[in-house]
C-alpha cells in the first residue's frame, strides 16, 4: 500500500489514470447506493446504461480524434456493426446458451472483433487520406454501414442461414424457419438483460485499454505520427502500422458500445436516428467538449451532455434550443483562451494551497 502511495505521488501518469478510474468507481458506488436507497427515479435508472455506452463511444472516438489525430465522422457505423453482431448472436445462440453472462460475453467479444475487422478494412483506404478528406470518407462509410444494415434480410432454418437484400420472400425460408433481420424493421424480440454493474466494468475495461495504450511504446508511436508524421517516419516509426492499429482498436471499442446499445432495446433497427451521422457528430461533440485527447474529459462531458437533455425536459418545446445554448456556453467557458485565463485566476483564489505553492515558486 505504501509503495502504491509513493507511486501515486511520484508517477504523474499513474496518478492521473488512478483519478480517472476512481471517478468512475465513485460514481458507480453513488448510483448503486441511490438505487438501493430507492431515491433514484425510473427515468434516471434508464439513463445509467446509456451513460455507459456513450462513454465507451466517446473514449474510443477520442482514441481516433485525440490520440491518432484524425477526424472520423463515421464512428456510429462501427457501433452499428457491434450492435447487429451482438443482436444476431443473441437471437441465434439464445436458445442454446442459457447461461446469460456467458452469452453476453460472447456477444461483446464478437461485436468487438467484427467491428474491429471492419475498422481494419475501412482503415486501409481511409487512412491514406488526411484531414477533411478523411473525415468525409469516414462519414460515407458510416452511412454505407447504416444503410446496408437497414436493407439486409436474414433468416435461419434447418438448412442454415439465408441472406438477401431484396425482401423476406427472397429468402425461401422453410415453414419452421425464423427471421432474424427483417430489413428496415430490424431485429425484434430482443431481451438482453445487462446489469449496470456489467456496463460499468466494461467502461473500466475500455478506460484501462485506452489509457494503458496511450502510455506505452505503441501510444507514443501513434501520438508521434499525430504531432509530426514526417519526423515520426524519420525516427523509424512505421506510420501505416500504428495508424491502422489505433483505428482498429477504436472501431472495436465502438463495437462493444454497440452491443451494449442493442442490449438496452427490444427492437434493433438501423436508421438515421441511431446510427446516422447525427450520432457520430453527437459523440464528437462529447469528445470536443471533454477536450480532444483528454480521456477523462470525454467521460465527464458525456455524462453531462447525456444528462442535460433529460433534465431540460420541463422546458418542453424549448428544450433543444436551450440545450444548444448551454452547449455553446460550455464550449466557450471550457475552451476559449480568455475564459480559461479568468477561470485559472478564480481557481487560484479559491484554492489556498495552490496559491501558496505559486508564491514559493516566485520566491
Amino acid at each position, binding site marked *: 500500500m505504501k509503495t502504491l502511495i509513493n507511486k501515486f505521488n511520484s508517477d504523474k501518469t499513474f496518478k492521473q489514470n488512478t483519478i480517472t478510474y476512481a471517478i468512475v468507481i465513485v460514481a458507480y458506488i453513488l448510483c448503486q447506493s441511490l438505487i438501493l436507497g430507492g431515491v433514484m427515479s425510473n427515468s434516471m435508472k434508464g439513463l445509467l446504461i446509456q451513460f455507459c455506452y456513450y462513454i465507451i463511444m466517446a473514449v474510443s472516438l477520442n482514441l481516433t480524434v485525440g490520440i491518432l489525430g484524425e477526424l472520423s465522422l463515421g464512428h456510429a457505423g462501427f457501433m452499428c456493426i457491434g450492435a447487429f453482431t451482438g443482436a444476431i448472436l443473441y437471437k441465434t445462440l439464445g436458445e442454446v446458451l442459457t447461461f446469460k453472462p456467458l452469452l453476453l460475453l460472447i456477444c461483446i467479444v464478437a461485436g468487438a472483433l467484427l467491428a474491429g475487422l471492419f475498422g481494419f478494412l475501412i482503415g486501409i483506404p481511409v487512412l491514406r487520406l488526411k484531414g477533411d478528406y478523411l473525415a468525409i470518407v469516414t462519414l460515407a462509410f458510416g452511412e454505407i454501414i447504416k444503410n446496408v444494415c437497414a436493407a439486409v434480410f436474414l433468416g435461419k432454418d434447418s438448412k442454415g442461414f439465408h441472406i438477401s437484400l431484396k425482401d423476406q420472400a427472397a429468402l425461401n425460408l422453410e415453414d419452421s424457419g425464423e427471421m432474424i433481420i427483417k430489413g428496415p424493421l430490424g431485429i425484434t424480440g430482443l431481451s438482453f438483460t445487462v446489469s449496470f454493474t456489467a456496463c460499468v466494468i466494461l467502461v473500466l475495461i475500455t478506460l484501462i485499454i485506452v489509457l494503458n495504450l496511450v502510455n506505452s*511504446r505503441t501510444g507514443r508511436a501513434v501520438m508521434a505520427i499525430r504531432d509530426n508524421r514526417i519526423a515520426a517516419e524519420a*525516427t523509424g*516509426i512505421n506510420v501505416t502500422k500504428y495508424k491502422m492499429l489505433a483505428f482498429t482498436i477504436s472501431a472495436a471499442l465502438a463495437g462493444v458500445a454497440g452491443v451494449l446499445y442493442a442490449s438496452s432495446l427490444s427492437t434493433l433497427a438501423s436508421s438515421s436516428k441511431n446510427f446516422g451521422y447525427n450520432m457520430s457528430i453527437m459523440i464528437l461533440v462529447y469528445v470536443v467538449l471533454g477536450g480532444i485527447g483528454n480521456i477523462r474529459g470525454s467521460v465527464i462531458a458525456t455524462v453531462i451532455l447525456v444528462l442535460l437533455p433529460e433534465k431540460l425536459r420541463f422546458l418542453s418545446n424549448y428544450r433543444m434550443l436551450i440545450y444548444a445554448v448551454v452547449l455553446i456556453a460550455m464550449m466557450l467557458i471550457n475552451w476559449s483562451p480568455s475564459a480559461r485565463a479568468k477561470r485559472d485566476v478564480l481557481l487560484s483564489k479559491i484554492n489556498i494551497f495552490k496559491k501558496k505553492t505559486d508564491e514559493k515558486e516566485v520566491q
Partner: protein
Amino acid sequence: MAKEMLSVNNLSISFGGLRAVDEFNLTINEGELYGLIGPNGAGKTTVFNLLTGVYKPDVGIIKLDGKDITGQPTIAINKEGIARTFQNIRLFSDMSVLDNVKVGLHNRFEYSTLSAVLRLPKYFKVEKEMNEKAMELLKVFDLDKEADLKASQLPYGKQRKLEIARALATDPKLLLLDEPAAGMNPNETKELMETISFIRKNFNLTILLIEHDMKLVSGICERLTVLNFGRVLCEGPTSEVLNNPEVITAYLGE
C-alpha cells in the same frame, strides 16, 4: 585508408523541369565531420531528403557503410543507421521532452502492444530501461531538468538540441544535421559546437551537416562540399574550400 561511411554516386533528381540535384557525388569517411554548404535554394535539403528516402532519386547510388540503400523507404533507412534533424524544427510538440526521446528509442526497446495494455512485467522492465536510456541522452544535452515539459514549451535553442537527442536515440551511424545553428545566438552556437564535438566522440558518429553559420562550419567541419544550383561547385578541406574564389563568388555574387 579510413573506411567509407557514406558514398553517393552521380545522384540526380528533377521536379518538373527543375534539376534540383544534378550528378551529386559525396564520400564521407567513418568518424568524419563533414559540411554541406551553399547559397539558399542550392539543393542542400533536397540532398538530405534523398539520403533519408523522403524523395527517390531519378538516378544515382547511395551506399551507407558499404550497403546500397538507394530508393529504400525512410523507416528502413533509419533502421540502417541514418538519423536526421530538420531545418524547420519538427518535434512531437504535444508530447513531453522525455517522450520525444523515447519515440526515438522505439525500435531499440521492444514489447508487444498486448503486454502494454495488460501491463505485464515486461512492460515495466522495458519502460524502466527506456526511461534510464532517455534520461542519459537528455543529460548529454542538459535537458534532463525539462524532461516533463511539453516539447513546445522549450525555448528555441533547446528544441534544436532535443531534436538532435531524439535523432541520437535511434542509434545512428550517420547523423544528418540540417542547419543546427539556425536562429541561435553566438553563445548558443558556441555551446552547440561543443555538443556536436562531444557526441561525435562519445557516440561513435559520422556527421554531415548543412549550415550557413561560417563560424560553426570553419570551427568544426573537416571537409566541405559546396553546392550551387544543384551541382557540386567544389569540395575539399575546409580552409581550402572557404578561400576558393569560385565559392566566394557564389555566396557574395560578382
